[in-house]
Protein backbone atom coordinates (compact mmCIF):
# COMPACT_ATOMS: atom_id res chain seq x y z
CA UNK A 1 0.00 0.00 0.00
CA UNK A 2 3.03 2.25 -0.16
CA UNK A 3 2.81 2.90 -3.86
CA UNK A 4 -0.24 5.16 -3.62
CA UNK A 5 0.06 8.37 -5.58
CA UNK A 6 0.08 11.67 -3.72
CA UNK A 7 -3.38 12.48 -5.08
CA UNK A 8 -4.82 9.17 -3.88
CA UNK A 9 -3.30 9.74 -0.44
CA UNK A 10 -4.79 13.20 -0.34
CA UNK A 11 -8.18 11.80 -1.34
CA UNK A 12 -8.02 9.14 1.39
CA UNK A 13 -6.99 11.75 3.93
CA UNK A 14 -9.89 13.99 2.96
CA UNK A 15 -12.25 11.05 3.22
CA UNK A 16 -11.02 10.15 6.72
CA UNK A 17 -11.28 13.77 7.80
CA UNK A 18 -14.86 13.93 6.53
CA UNK A 19 -15.81 10.77 8.44
CA UNK A 20 -14.18 12.10 11.62
CA UNK A 21 -16.02 15.43 11.41
CA UNK A 22 -19.34 13.61 10.97
CA UNK A 23 -18.89 11.33 13.98
CA UNK A 24 -17.47 14.03 16.26
CA UNK A 25 -20.35 16.35 15.37
CA UNK A 26 -22.89 13.65 16.14
CA UNK A 27 -21.42 13.09 19.59
CA UNK A 28 -21.10 16.85 20.23
CA UNK A 29 -24.79 17.41 19.46
CA UNK A 30 -25.79 14.75 21.98
CA UNK A 31 -23.41 16.01 24.66
CA UNK A 32 -24.42 19.64 24.29
CA UNK A 33 -28.09 18.68 24.38
CA UNK A 34 -27.55 16.71 27.58
CA UNK A 35 -25.48 19.53 29.05
CA UNK A 36 -28.06 22.23 28.31
CA UNK A 37 -30.82 20.02 29.71
CA UNK A 38 -28.91 19.24 32.91
CA UNK A 39 -27.81 22.83 33.35
CA UNK A 40 -31.23 24.43 32.86
CA UNK A 41 -32.84 21.87 35.15
CA UNK A 42 -30.28 22.49 37.89
CA UNK A 43 -30.49 26.29 37.86
CA UNK A 44 -34.29 26.10 37.71
CA UNK A 45 -34.96 27.49 34.21
CA UNK A 46 -37.04 24.37 33.49
CA UNK A 47 -38.97 22.42 36.11
CA UNK A 48 -37.07 19.20 36.75
CA UNK A 49 -40.26 17.60 38.12
CA UNK A 50 -41.85 17.86 34.69
CA UNK A 51 -38.84 17.65 32.44
CA UNK A 52 -36.60 15.49 34.64
CA UNK A 53 -32.83 15.78 34.04
CA UNK A 54 -30.09 13.58 32.59
CA UNK A 55 -28.56 12.87 36.01
CA UNK A 56 -31.92 11.81 37.47
CA UNK A 57 -32.54 9.58 34.48
CA UNK A 58 -29.12 8.03 34.85
CA UNK A 59 -29.77 7.33 38.53
CA UNK A 60 -33.18 5.87 37.80
CA UNK A 61 -31.75 3.69 35.05
CA UNK A 62 -28.97 2.56 37.35
CA UNK A 63 -31.56 1.64 39.95
CA UNK A 64 -33.45 -0.46 37.43
CA UNK A 65 -30.24 -2.14 36.36
CA UNK A 66 -29.50 -2.94 40.01
CA UNK A 67 -32.87 -4.51 40.79
CA UNK A 68 -32.80 -6.12 37.32
CA UNK A 69 -36.37 -5.01 36.56
CA UNK A 70 -35.26 -3.41 33.29
CA UNK A 71 -34.06 -6.75 31.92
CA UNK A 72 -37.40 -8.41 32.52
CA UNK A 73 -39.32 -5.65 30.75
CA UNK A 74 -36.80 -5.40 27.95
CA UNK A 75 -36.85 -9.16 27.42
CA UNK A 76 -40.63 -9.33 27.33
CA UNK A 77 -40.92 -6.52 24.79
CA UNK A 78 -38.14 -7.94 22.67
CA UNK A 79 -39.74 -11.38 22.69
CA UNK A 80 -43.16 -10.05 21.70
CA UNK A 81 -41.67 -7.87 18.98
CA UNK A 82 -39.70 -10.69 17.44
CA UNK A 83 -42.67 -13.07 17.44
CA UNK A 84 -44.93 -10.54 15.80
CA UNK A 85 -42.18 -9.59 13.35
CA UNK A 86 -41.63 -13.20 12.27
CA UNK A 87 -45.36 -13.71 11.86
CA UNK A 88 -45.67 -10.53 9.82
CA UNK A 89 -42.88 -11.59 7.48
CA UNK A 90 -44.19 -15.13 7.01
CA UNK A 91 -47.81 -14.08 6.50
CA UNK A 92 -47.04 -11.16 4.22
CA UNK A 93 -44.78 -13.23 1.96
CA UNK A 94 -47.45 -15.93 1.72
CA UNK A 95 -50.25 -13.46 0.99
CA UNK A 96 -48.14 -11.49 -1.51
CA UNK A 97 -47.31 -14.73 -3.34
CA UNK A 98 -51.01 -15.66 -3.44
CA UNK A 99 -51.88 -12.22 -4.81
CA UNK A 100 -49.14 -12.52 -7.42
CA UNK A 101 -50.42 -15.92 -8.50
CA UNK A 102 -53.93 -14.71 -9.06
CA UNK A 103 -54.34 -11.31 -10.62
CA UNK A 104 -58.06 -11.74 -10.11
CA UNK A 105 -57.59 -12.18 -6.36
CA UNK A 106 -55.32 -9.14 -6.13
CA UNK A 107 -57.78 -7.01 -8.08
CA UNK A 108 -60.61 -8.14 -5.81
CA UNK A 109 -58.71 -7.56 -2.58
CA UNK A 110 -56.90 -4.36 -3.53
CA UNK A 111 -59.39 -1.84 -2.03
CA UNK A 112 -59.62 -3.87 1.19
CA UNK A 113 -55.86 -3.90 1.65
CA UNK A 114 -55.64 -0.16 1.05
CA UNK A 115 -58.40 0.52 3.59
CA UNK A 116 -56.96 -1.86 6.18
CA UNK A 117 -53.54 -0.32 5.74
CA UNK A 118 -54.78 3.21 6.35
CA UNK A 119 -56.75 2.16 9.43
CA UNK A 120 -55.46 3.83 12.62
CA UNK A 121 -54.11 0.69 14.28
CA UNK A 122 -53.61 2.20 17.73
CA UNK A 123 -57.36 2.71 17.80
CA UNK A 124 -57.72 -1.03 17.25
CA UNK A 125 -55.75 -1.95 20.37
CA UNK A 126 -58.59 -1.40 22.88
CA UNK A 127 -60.86 -3.54 20.66
CA UNK A 128 -58.25 -6.28 20.53
CA UNK A 129 -58.26 -6.46 24.32
CA UNK A 130 -62.01 -6.94 24.29
CA UNK A 131 -61.78 -9.60 21.61
CA UNK A 132 -58.73 -11.50 22.75
CA UNK A 133 -58.37 -10.59 26.45
CA UNK A 134 -55.42 -8.97 28.18
CA UNK A 135 -52.89 -11.58 27.12
CA UNK A 136 -49.63 -11.81 25.24
CA UNK A 137 -51.57 -12.84 22.14
CA UNK A 138 -53.29 -9.45 22.12
CA UNK A 139 -49.98 -7.65 22.30
CA UNK A 140 -48.47 -9.74 19.51
CA UNK A 141 -51.54 -9.19 17.34
CA UNK A 142 -51.35 -5.47 18.08
CA UNK A 143 -47.73 -5.50 16.95
CA UNK A 144 -48.65 -7.34 13.77
CA UNK A 145 -51.62 -5.13 12.98
CA UNK A 146 -49.40 -2.08 12.60
CA UNK A 147 -47.07 -3.68 10.06
CA UNK A 148 -48.85 -6.41 8.18
CA UNK A 149 -51.01 -4.64 5.61
CA UNK A 150 -48.33 -2.23 4.52
CA UNK A 151 -45.92 -5.13 4.34
CA UNK A 152 -48.24 -7.16 2.08
CA UNK A 153 -48.80 -4.19 -0.20
CA UNK A 154 -45.13 -3.32 -0.57
CA UNK A 155 -44.09 -6.94 -1.14
CA UNK A 156 -46.82 -7.46 -3.71
CA UNK A 157 -45.76 -4.28 -5.49
CA UNK A 158 -42.16 -5.44 -5.60
CA UNK A 159 -43.33 -8.78 -7.03
CA UNK A 160 -45.30 -7.12 -9.80
CA UNK A 161 -42.48 -4.89 -11.01
CA UNK A 162 -40.25 -7.87 -11.85
CA UNK A 163 -38.98 -7.59 -15.43
CA UNK A 164 -41.59 -9.26 -17.69
CA UNK A 165 -38.81 -10.28 -20.10
CA UNK A 166 -37.29 -12.51 -17.42
CA UNK A 167 -40.65 -14.14 -16.76
CA UNK A 168 -41.12 -14.67 -20.50
CA UNK A 169 -37.70 -16.34 -20.55
CA UNK A 170 -38.91 -18.87 -17.96
CA UNK A 171 -41.87 -19.74 -20.17
CA UNK A 172 -39.68 -20.05 -23.28
CA UNK A 173 -37.51 -22.50 -21.33
CA UNK A 174 -40.59 -24.60 -20.70
CA UNK A 175 -41.30 -23.40 -17.16
CA UNK A 176 -44.62 -22.62 -15.52
CA UNK A 177 -45.80 -19.99 -13.07
CA UNK A 178 -44.22 -21.82 -10.12
CA UNK A 179 -40.85 -21.66 -11.86
CA UNK A 180 -41.39 -17.98 -12.57
CA UNK A 181 -42.00 -17.49 -8.85
CA UNK A 182 -39.11 -19.52 -7.53
CA UNK A 183 -36.51 -18.68 -10.20
CA UNK A 184 -37.30 -15.04 -10.93
CA UNK A 185 -39.80 -13.29 -8.67
CA UNK A 186 -38.49 -14.37 -5.27
CA UNK A 187 -34.73 -14.07 -5.99
CA UNK A 188 -35.10 -10.67 -7.62
CA UNK A 189 -37.26 -9.45 -4.73
CA UNK A 190 -34.75 -10.29 -2.01
CA UNK A 191 -33.52 -6.68 -1.63
CA UNK A 192 -37.14 -5.54 -1.38
CA UNK A 193 -37.89 -8.23 1.20
CA UNK A 194 -34.90 -7.19 3.30
CA UNK A 195 -35.77 -3.51 3.27
CA UNK A 196 -39.35 -4.46 4.05
CA UNK A 197 -38.09 -6.40 7.07
CA UNK A 198 -36.13 -3.37 8.25
CA UNK A 199 -39.24 -1.22 8.23
CA UNK A 200 -41.38 -3.91 9.83
CA UNK A 201 -39.24 -4.57 12.88
CA UNK A 202 -39.64 -0.93 13.91
CA UNK A 203 -43.36 -0.95 13.22
CA UNK A 204 -43.85 -4.18 15.19
CA UNK A 205 -42.06 -2.62 18.15
CA UNK A 206 -44.37 0.39 18.03
CA UNK A 207 -47.40 -1.91 17.85
CA UNK A 208 -46.17 -4.05 20.72
CA UNK A 209 -45.61 -1.00 22.93
CA UNK A 210 -49.08 0.31 22.09
CA UNK A 211 -50.42 -3.10 23.08
CA UNK A 212 -48.44 -3.06 26.31
CA UNK A 213 -49.80 0.39 27.16
CA UNK A 214 -53.21 -1.16 27.46
CA UNK A 215 -52.92 -4.80 28.27
CA UNK A 216 -49.73 -5.77 30.02
CA UNK A 217 -48.17 -6.45 33.39
CA UNK A 218 -44.66 -6.18 32.03
CA UNK A 219 -42.72 -4.85 29.05
CA UNK A 220 -41.46 -1.40 28.14
CA UNK A 221 -44.91 -0.12 27.19
CA UNK A 222 -46.21 -1.11 30.60
CA UNK A 223 -43.27 0.64 32.28
CA UNK A 224 -43.94 3.83 30.32
CA UNK A 225 -47.59 3.88 31.36
CA UNK A 226 -46.76 2.96 34.93
CA UNK A 227 -44.12 5.69 35.21
CA UNK A 228 -46.40 8.30 33.72
CA UNK A 229 -49.12 7.40 36.21
CA UNK A 230 -46.76 7.78 39.16
CA UNK A 231 -45.23 10.95 37.67
CA UNK A 232 -41.80 9.53 37.05
CA UNK A 233 -40.77 11.47 33.97
CA UNK A 234 -37.33 9.99 34.16
CA UNK A 235 -38.87 6.52 33.89
CA UNK A 236 -40.88 7.38 30.79
CA UNK A 237 -37.87 8.88 29.13
CA UNK A 238 -35.69 5.88 29.87
CA UNK A 239 -38.26 3.54 28.40
CA UNK A 240 -38.79 5.65 25.30
CA UNK A 241 -35.09 5.97 24.67
CA UNK A 242 -34.53 2.28 25.29
CA UNK A 243 -37.29 1.29 22.90
CA UNK A 244 -36.04 3.54 20.13
CA UNK A 245 -32.59 2.19 20.78
CA UNK A 246 -33.85 -1.37 20.34
CA UNK A 247 -35.43 -0.55 17.02
CA UNK A 248 -32.16 1.07 15.97
CA UNK A 249 -30.25 -2.05 16.87
CA UNK A 250 -32.73 -4.35 15.21
CA UNK A 251 -33.20 -2.49 11.98
CA UNK A 252 -29.77 -1.01 11.42
CA UNK A 253 -27.72 -4.05 12.18
CA UNK A 254 -24.84 -3.26 9.83
CA UNK A 255 -24.88 -6.51 7.92
CA UNK A 256 -28.52 -6.68 6.96
CA UNK A 257 -28.75 -3.52 4.91
CA UNK A 258 -30.18 -4.36 1.48
CA UNK A 259 -27.26 -2.98 -0.50
CA UNK A 260 -24.92 -5.27 1.45
CA UNK A 261 -26.78 -8.44 0.53
CA UNK A 262 -24.74 -10.28 -2.07
CA UNK A 263 -26.58 -10.79 -5.32
CA UNK A 264 -25.34 -14.35 -5.45
CA UNK A 265 -27.80 -17.23 -5.37
Amino acid at each position, binding site marked *: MNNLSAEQKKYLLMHRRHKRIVSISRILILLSFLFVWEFTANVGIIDSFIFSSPSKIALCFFGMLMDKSIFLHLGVTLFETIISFLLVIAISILVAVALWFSSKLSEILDPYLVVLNSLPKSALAPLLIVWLGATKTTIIVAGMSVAIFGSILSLYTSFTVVDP*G*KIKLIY*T*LGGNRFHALS*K*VVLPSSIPAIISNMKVNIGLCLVGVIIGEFLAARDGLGYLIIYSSQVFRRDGILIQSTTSSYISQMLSLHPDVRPEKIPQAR
Partner: protein
Amino acid sequence: MEQVLELKHIHYAYHTLDGETPALTDISFALNKGEFVSIVGPSGCGKSTLLSLISGLLEPEKGLIKINGKYLKESTTNVGYMLQHDELFEWRTIYNNVILGLEIQHMLTARTRERAHDLLDLYGLRQFESSHPSELSGGMRQRAALIRTLVLEPDLLLLDEPFSALDYQTRLTVGDDIGQIIRKEGKSALLVTHDLSEAISLADRVIILSGRPATIKQTIPLIFDLDADTPLNRRNAPEFKTYFNLIWKELNTDE
Protein backbone atom coordinates in the same frame (compact mmCIF):
# COMPACT_ATOMS: atom_id res chain seq x y z
CA MET B 1 -36.80 -33.05 -47.30
CA GLU B 2 -37.78 -33.44 -43.68
CA GLN B 3 -39.79 -30.54 -42.34
CA VAL B 4 -39.06 -29.30 -38.85
CA LEU B 5 -41.78 -26.70 -38.80
CA GLU B 6 -44.97 -26.28 -40.73
CA LEU B 7 -47.46 -23.42 -40.43
CA LYS B 8 -50.81 -23.54 -42.19
CA HIS B 9 -53.20 -20.61 -42.52
CA ILE B 10 -52.34 -19.00 -39.21
CA HIS B 11 -54.55 -16.15 -38.04
CA TYR B 12 -54.04 -14.17 -34.87
CA ALA B 13 -55.51 -10.98 -33.41
CA TYR B 14 -54.97 -9.02 -30.21
CA HIS B 15 -57.99 -8.08 -28.17
CA THR B 16 -58.34 -5.01 -25.98
CA LEU B 17 -61.39 -3.18 -24.65
CA ASP B 18 -60.97 -0.68 -27.47
CA GLY B 19 -61.32 -3.37 -30.08
CA GLU B 20 -59.57 -6.03 -32.04
CA THR B 21 -56.20 -5.64 -33.77
CA PRO B 22 -55.53 -8.31 -36.36
CA ALA B 23 -51.82 -9.17 -36.28
CA LEU B 24 -51.40 -12.12 -38.63
CA THR B 25 -53.62 -13.25 -41.49
CA ASP B 26 -53.23 -16.50 -43.36
CA ILE B 27 -49.55 -17.20 -42.73
CA SER B 28 -48.32 -20.48 -44.20
CA PHE B 29 -44.75 -21.63 -44.60
CA ALA B 30 -42.47 -24.51 -43.74
CA LEU B 31 -38.94 -24.86 -42.48
CA ASN B 32 -36.70 -27.74 -43.57
CA LYS B 33 -34.28 -29.52 -41.31
CA GLY B 34 -31.04 -27.59 -40.96
CA GLU B 35 -32.42 -24.58 -42.74
CA PHE B 36 -31.98 -20.99 -41.57
CA VAL B 37 -34.87 -18.71 -42.46
CA SER B 38 -35.14 -14.99 -41.80
CA ILE B 39 -38.43 -13.16 -41.51
CA VAL B 40 -38.37 -9.45 -42.23
CA GLY B 41 -41.15 -6.92 -42.18
CA PRO B 42 -42.01 -3.41 -41.11
CA SER B 43 -41.84 -2.86 -37.35
CA GLY B 44 -44.95 -3.78 -35.44
CA CYS B 45 -46.20 -6.10 -38.17
CA GLY B 46 -46.50 -9.11 -35.89
CA LYS B 47 -43.13 -10.79 -36.42
CA SER B 48 -42.61 -11.48 -32.73
CA THR B 49 -46.18 -12.70 -32.41
CA LEU B 50 -45.34 -15.35 -34.96
CA LEU B 51 -42.48 -16.65 -32.79
CA SER B 52 -44.67 -16.61 -29.67
CA LEU B 53 -47.21 -18.75 -31.55
CA ILE B 54 -44.57 -21.26 -32.68
CA SER B 55 -43.11 -21.53 -29.20
CA GLY B 56 -46.57 -22.12 -27.76
CA LEU B 57 -46.66 -18.98 -25.60
CA LEU B 58 -49.71 -17.88 -27.59
CA GLU B 59 -52.33 -19.96 -29.32
CA PRO B 60 -53.40 -19.19 -32.90
CA GLU B 61 -57.05 -18.29 -33.38
CA LYS B 62 -57.16 -20.21 -36.65
CA GLY B 63 -54.76 -22.49 -38.47
CA LEU B 64 -52.36 -25.17 -37.33
CA ILE B 65 -48.72 -25.47 -36.41
CA LYS B 66 -46.79 -28.71 -36.72
CA ILE B 67 -43.35 -29.38 -35.37
CA ASN B 68 -41.51 -32.46 -36.62
CA GLY B 69 -44.81 -33.62 -38.11
CA LYS B 70 -46.71 -33.43 -34.83
CA TYR B 71 -49.22 -30.84 -33.69
CA LEU B 72 -47.68 -28.25 -31.42
CA LYS B 73 -49.62 -29.42 -28.35
CA GLU B 74 -48.57 -33.06 -28.69
CA SER B 75 -45.04 -32.23 -29.76
CA THR B 76 -42.24 -33.18 -27.42
CA THR B 77 -39.63 -31.40 -29.53
CA ASN B 78 -37.64 -28.80 -27.72
CA VAL B 79 -38.02 -25.38 -29.28
CA GLY B 80 -35.31 -22.96 -28.28
CA TYR B 81 -36.32 -19.33 -28.09
CA MET B 82 -33.76 -16.55 -27.96
CA LEU B 83 -35.14 -13.23 -26.84
CA GLN B 84 -34.19 -9.69 -27.78
CA HIS B 85 -32.38 -9.18 -24.48
CA ASP B 86 -30.16 -11.82 -22.95
CA GLU B 87 -32.22 -11.84 -19.70
CA LEU B 88 -29.34 -13.36 -17.78
CA PHE B 89 -30.05 -13.35 -14.06
CA GLU B 90 -27.64 -11.18 -12.14
CA TRP B 91 -28.02 -13.29 -8.99
CA ARG B 92 -26.76 -16.39 -10.79
CA THR B 93 -23.33 -17.14 -12.16
CA ILE B 94 -22.93 -17.65 -15.90
CA TYR B 95 -22.86 -21.41 -15.43
CA ASN B 96 -25.99 -21.33 -13.28
CA ASN B 97 -27.67 -19.12 -15.87
CA VAL B 98 -26.78 -21.58 -18.60
CA ILE B 99 -28.31 -24.53 -16.75
CA LEU B 100 -31.53 -22.66 -15.88
CA GLY B 101 -33.49 -24.42 -18.62
CA LEU B 102 -32.13 -27.82 -17.57
CA GLU B 103 -33.15 -27.05 -14.00
CA ILE B 104 -36.69 -26.12 -15.03
CA GLN B 105 -37.14 -29.17 -17.24
CA HIS B 106 -35.61 -31.49 -14.61
CA MET B 107 -32.89 -32.51 -17.03
CA LEU B 108 -29.91 -31.87 -14.78
CA THR B 109 -27.76 -34.96 -15.06
CA ALA B 110 -24.05 -35.55 -15.11
CA ARG B 111 -24.26 -35.72 -18.90
CA THR B 112 -26.13 -32.43 -19.38
CA ARG B 113 -23.88 -30.64 -16.88
CA GLU B 114 -20.92 -31.92 -18.85
CA ARG B 115 -22.48 -30.60 -22.04
CA ALA B 116 -23.04 -27.19 -20.46
CA HIS B 117 -19.37 -27.05 -19.50
CA ASP B 118 -18.34 -28.22 -22.98
CA LEU B 119 -20.42 -25.59 -24.74
CA LEU B 120 -19.09 -22.84 -22.47
CA ASP B 121 -15.61 -24.08 -23.21
CA LEU B 122 -16.20 -24.34 -26.95
CA TYR B 123 -17.55 -20.81 -27.21
CA GLY B 124 -14.92 -19.16 -25.08
CA LEU B 125 -16.75 -18.64 -21.82
CA ARG B 126 -15.04 -21.30 -19.69
CA GLN B 127 -13.12 -18.80 -17.56
CA PHE B 128 -16.33 -16.85 -16.96
CA GLU B 129 -18.34 -19.80 -15.64
CA SER B 130 -18.39 -18.48 -12.11
CA SER B 131 -18.60 -14.81 -13.08
CA HIS B 132 -21.82 -12.85 -12.84
CA PRO B 133 -23.44 -11.48 -16.01
CA SER B 134 -22.49 -7.86 -15.28
CA GLU B 135 -18.82 -8.79 -15.63
CA LEU B 136 -19.31 -9.85 -19.28
CA SER B 137 -19.48 -7.77 -22.43
CA GLY B 138 -22.71 -7.52 -24.40
CA GLY B 139 -21.46 -10.02 -26.99
CA MET B 140 -20.39 -12.57 -24.39
CA ARG B 141 -23.71 -12.21 -22.61
CA GLN B 142 -25.57 -12.91 -25.84
CA ARG B 143 -23.37 -15.97 -26.40
CA ALA B 144 -24.16 -17.19 -22.88
CA ALA B 145 -27.85 -16.72 -23.67
CA LEU B 146 -27.42 -18.81 -26.82
CA ILE B 147 -25.69 -21.57 -24.87
CA ARG B 148 -28.56 -21.51 -22.35
CA THR B 149 -30.83 -22.27 -25.32
CA LEU B 150 -28.53 -24.79 -27.03
CA VAL B 151 -27.91 -26.87 -23.93
CA LEU B 152 -31.55 -28.00 -24.09
CA GLU B 153 -30.69 -29.49 -27.50
CA PRO B 154 -33.54 -27.85 -29.40
CA ASP B 155 -34.36 -29.06 -32.91
CA LEU B 156 -35.63 -25.64 -33.79
CA LEU B 157 -34.25 -22.26 -32.76
CA LEU B 158 -36.39 -19.14 -32.72
CA LEU B 159 -34.40 -15.90 -32.71
CA ASP B 160 -36.31 -12.72 -31.90
CA GLU B 161 -34.01 -9.87 -32.97
CA PRO B 162 -31.34 -11.27 -30.66
CA PHE B 163 -28.73 -8.73 -31.72
CA SER B 164 -30.79 -5.56 -31.69
CA ALA B 165 -29.75 -4.59 -28.16
CA LEU B 166 -26.06 -4.60 -29.12
CA ASP B 167 -24.04 -1.74 -30.57
CA TYR B 168 -23.30 -1.91 -34.28
CA GLN B 169 -19.77 -3.29 -34.15
CA THR B 170 -20.61 -5.96 -31.56
CA ARG B 171 -23.68 -6.76 -33.56
CA LEU B 172 -21.68 -7.67 -36.65
CA THR B 173 -19.24 -9.89 -34.78
CA VAL B 174 -21.86 -11.51 -32.56
CA GLY B 175 -24.13 -12.05 -35.57
CA ASP B 176 -21.26 -13.72 -37.38
CA ASP B 177 -20.34 -15.67 -34.28
CA ILE B 178 -23.81 -16.91 -33.45
CA GLY B 179 -24.66 -17.60 -37.08
CA GLN B 180 -21.66 -19.91 -37.30
CA ILE B 181 -22.46 -21.59 -33.98
CA ILE B 182 -25.97 -22.39 -35.19
CA ARG B 183 -24.64 -23.78 -38.50
CA LYS B 184 -22.05 -25.82 -36.69
CA GLU B 185 -24.61 -27.34 -34.33
CA GLY B 186 -26.74 -28.13 -37.40
CA LYS B 187 -29.83 -26.45 -35.99
CA SER B 188 -32.84 -25.25 -37.92
CA ALA B 189 -33.45 -21.62 -37.12
CA LEU B 190 -36.06 -18.96 -37.65
CA LEU B 191 -34.78 -15.40 -37.25
CA VAL B 192 -37.08 -12.42 -36.92
CA THR B 193 -35.46 -9.08 -37.61
CA HIS B 194 -36.03 -5.65 -39.09
CA ASP B 195 -32.36 -5.44 -40.10
CA LEU B 196 -32.22 -6.49 -43.75
CA SER B 197 -28.47 -6.95 -43.93
CA GLU B 198 -28.60 -9.19 -40.84
CA ALA B 199 -31.35 -11.27 -42.45
CA ILE B 200 -29.39 -11.65 -45.69
CA SER B 201 -26.05 -12.40 -44.05
CA LEU B 202 -27.46 -15.24 -41.95
CA ALA B 203 -30.27 -17.00 -43.80
CA ASP B 204 -30.88 -19.50 -46.58
CA ARG B 205 -34.21 -17.92 -47.32
CA VAL B 206 -35.91 -14.63 -46.49
CA ILE B 207 -39.64 -14.35 -45.93
CA ILE B 208 -41.01 -10.85 -46.40
CA LEU B 209 -44.08 -9.86 -44.41
CA SER B 210 -46.41 -6.98 -45.19
CA GLY B 211 -47.49 -4.36 -42.67
CA ARG B 212 -50.19 -5.16 -40.12
CA PRO B 213 -52.07 -7.40 -40.43
CA ALA B 214 -49.11 -9.38 -41.70
CA THR B 215 -49.35 -11.61 -44.72
CA ILE B 216 -46.48 -13.22 -46.58
CA LYS B 217 -45.52 -10.97 -49.47
CA GLN B 218 -42.74 -13.02 -50.93
CA THR B 219 -40.12 -15.62 -50.16
CA ILE B 220 -36.64 -15.07 -51.54
CA PRO B 221 -34.06 -17.88 -51.54
CA LEU B 222 -30.51 -16.66 -51.00
CA ILE B 223 -27.68 -18.28 -52.91
CA PHE B 224 -24.12 -17.13 -52.36
CA ASP B 225 -21.18 -18.38 -54.33
CA LEU B 226 -18.62 -18.37 -51.54
CA ASP B 227 -15.91 -20.76 -50.40
CA ALA B 228 -16.42 -19.92 -46.77
CA ASP B 229 -20.07 -19.01 -46.43
CA THR B 230 -19.93 -16.98 -43.23
CA PRO B 231 -22.14 -14.01 -42.40
CA LEU B 232 -19.20 -11.58 -42.63
CA ASN B 233 -18.04 -12.93 -46.00
CA ARG B 234 -21.55 -12.63 -47.31
CA ARG B 235 -21.63 -8.95 -46.49
CA ASN B 236 -18.72 -8.45 -48.90
CA ALA B 237 -20.08 -10.66 -51.67
CA PRO B 238 -21.49 -8.99 -54.82
CA GLU B 239 -24.81 -10.84 -54.43
CA PHE B 240 -25.38 -9.13 -51.10
CA LYS B 241 -26.26 -5.77 -52.63
CA THR B 242 -28.54 -7.33 -55.20
CA TYR B 243 -30.51 -9.18 -52.53
CA PHE B 244 -30.59 -6.13 -50.32
CA ASN B 245 -32.12 -3.98 -53.07
CA LEU B 246 -34.54 -6.70 -54.04
CA ILE B 247 -35.85 -7.10 -50.50
CA TRP B 248 -35.83 -3.37 -49.84
CA LYS B 249 -37.95 -2.76 -52.92
CA GLU B 250 -40.32 -5.55 -52.00
CA LEU B 251 -40.76 -4.18 -48.46
CA ASN B 252 -41.53 -0.70 -49.70
CA THR B 253 -44.06 -1.50 -52.39
CA ASP B 254 -47.65 -1.26 -51.26
CA GLU B 255 -50.01 -3.13 -53.42
